[in-house]
């Protein structure tokens, strides 16, 4: 077990003037046994950050420590970590058993212990029957399990996951998500999990790190991130549909962006007048897209109502009122949350 500390970690490619900086000084403390999800849109640097922790990318500046040991100059195999890759990266010519045992074999673990550890991991992941098969004879979900098994048998201090669920179909993904949670509860190993999928992030994370363009925008529990987004980026990225960000709300202070989540707008007899442009029925709930024109402003507002509410008609005008305690205020210039603490 170990904590991970990132201290002003910077990654740049190239040297001198042509250098292209992709991670701009990320600092974070991940406590022992915690499950942390790094989430962000593609190209935000989340995988690069993970690969720096793994030792597959050099650290341009700053320090990464695992369990109070600075690992900047250690080889991946010396960092006491295990990684699950997006495409699983199983050795195609080795059987499942050999795949899982390879790292231990190199570390010169006695054959008996290898067999015992692989056996135990196979039992946890229920892949016992496939031990002598080759990866190409397995389904995507089974391969995924083998990749996790390979990580487990090493008994590392830290698990690193690089979008391990993105190659699975939706049903299997939901199931595997639960299994990863269960696994983490049982083994209690510090885990870093990279994903671009906010549902995965919300459901798996004990704490999540929201990244955008190489900057860590917020680091907090899923509740904090959802209920008190630190920046307009986080507010717009988390939640589907995203938070309404209104640049010209009527009773807001100047230079303020007002945010309100679609489910926190109620259809009322009076309030903001919206011209309904589209209505989407999603089963349990209904999304209404309304155009709000007031003064010079012209903004698209999304409202989420439950299915049993009356459906607005396209072309009609409806009135909505936000719940006052659910309004968020952001600085228009910096995009930062206004009420200070996040």
């Amino acid at each position, binding site marked *: 077990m170990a904590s991970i500390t990132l201290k002003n970690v910077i990654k740049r490619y190239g040297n001198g003037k042509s250098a292209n900086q992709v991670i701009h000084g990320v600092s974070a403390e991940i406590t022992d046994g915690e499950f942390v999800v790094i989430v962000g849109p593609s190209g935000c640097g989340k995988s690069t950050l993970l690969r720096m922790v793994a030792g597959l990318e050099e650290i341009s500046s700053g320090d990464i420590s695992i369990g109070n040991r600075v690992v900047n100059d250690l*080889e991946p195999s010396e960092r006491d970590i295990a*990684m699950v*890759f997006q495409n699983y990266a199983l050795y*195609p*010519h080795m059987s499942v058993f050999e795949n899982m045992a*390879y*790292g231990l074999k190199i570390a010169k673990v006695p054959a008996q212990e290898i067999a015992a550890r692989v056996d135990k991991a196979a039992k946890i992941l229920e892949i016992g029957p496939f031990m002598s098969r080759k990866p*190409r004879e397995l389904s995507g979900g089974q391969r995924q399990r083998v990749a996790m098994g390979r990580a487990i048998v090493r008994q590392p201090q830290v698990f690193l996951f690089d979008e391990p669920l993105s190659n699975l179909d939706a049903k299997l993904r939901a199931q595997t998500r639960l299994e990863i949670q269960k696994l983490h509860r049982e083994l209690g190993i510090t885990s870093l999990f990279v994903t671009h999928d906010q549902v995965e992030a919300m459901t798996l994370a004990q704490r999540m790190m929201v990244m955008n363009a190489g900057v860590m925008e917020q680091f907090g529990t899923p509740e904090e991130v959802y209920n008190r987004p630190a920046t307009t980026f986080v507010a717009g990225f988390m939640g589907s549909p995203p938070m309404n960000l209104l640049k010209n709300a009527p009773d807001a202070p100047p230079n303020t962006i007002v945010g309100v989540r679609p489910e926190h707008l109620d259809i009322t007899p009076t309030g903001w007048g919206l011209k309904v442009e589209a209505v989407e029925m999603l089963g349990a709930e209904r999304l209404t897209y309304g155009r709000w024109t007031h003064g010079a402003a012209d903004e698209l507002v999304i409202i989420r109502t439950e299915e049993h509410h009356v459906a607005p008609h396209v072309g009609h005008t409806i009135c909505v009122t936000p719940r006052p305690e659910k309004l968020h205020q952001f600085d228009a210039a910096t995009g930062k949350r206004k009420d200070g603490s996040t």
Partner: protein
Amino acid sequence: MVERRPWLTVLSHAVLILGVLVVAFPLYLTLVASTQTSQAIVQSPMPLLPGGHLIENYTAAWNGTGGGSGSKAPVGQMMMVSLISALIISLGKIAISLLSAFAIVYFRFPFRMFFFWAIFITLMLPVEVRIGPTYKVVSDLGMLNSYAGLTIPLIASATATFLFRQFFLTVPEELVEAARMDGAGPMRFFKDVLVPLSKTSIAALFVIQFIYGWNQYLWPLLVTTNENMYPVVIGIKRMISGGDSEMQWNIVMATAVLAMLPPALVVMLMQKWFVKGLVDTEK
């Protein structure tokens, strides 16, 4: 074409049969000639059906007791020379090109691209072009009439290096990283992952290079002057003495048939692997 037209089927078969006849006829003639007496062959027209001297011709060729005025090196021994050289050439080529391709693809060292292009450019320089200087070097090193002289100049191979390079480039980057996480050093990765993954390519290359080595003519012609070191291809040439003397064509043909057997055998036995190596990538 998947059209169902009977006359097309007939036509395509006719073309194929014609092709087979054209290719197979010289081979058949060689086989027939190797079963006749030398007198029968020089008759006009020569007999087109097998004769009754098969066993005595082949034993004569094998033991080098064929008579005639040319070289009388025993075929058995020449085939041994051919086999050893062809094996050294093909295995040597594979070993060297695997290693050089590994270096070029997986290591970042100064002048990497220079070395790659240096190797690549030698593709355009076959043995024949550099035969003069190579002969000088080999003879100065005292390697004439030796296996070293027969094989070493033929081992370096740009083609094979290039082939392995292309294959290594298709191995996913994540596999390299997984091996690093597992603590496999470069040579360990090479031995445990790359070589097993390349085995079909290796097999295909072995077939091609074995035949290449076996069929070498010009180079052995220069560096072997001693009958004991003749490869079988040279042996055939030396049996034909030229001039007016009576030629033992039956023995020459028997030798030719024997010389054809090992490459044919390699192709037949390795055919499955050979096709696999050229066609699929198994991933």
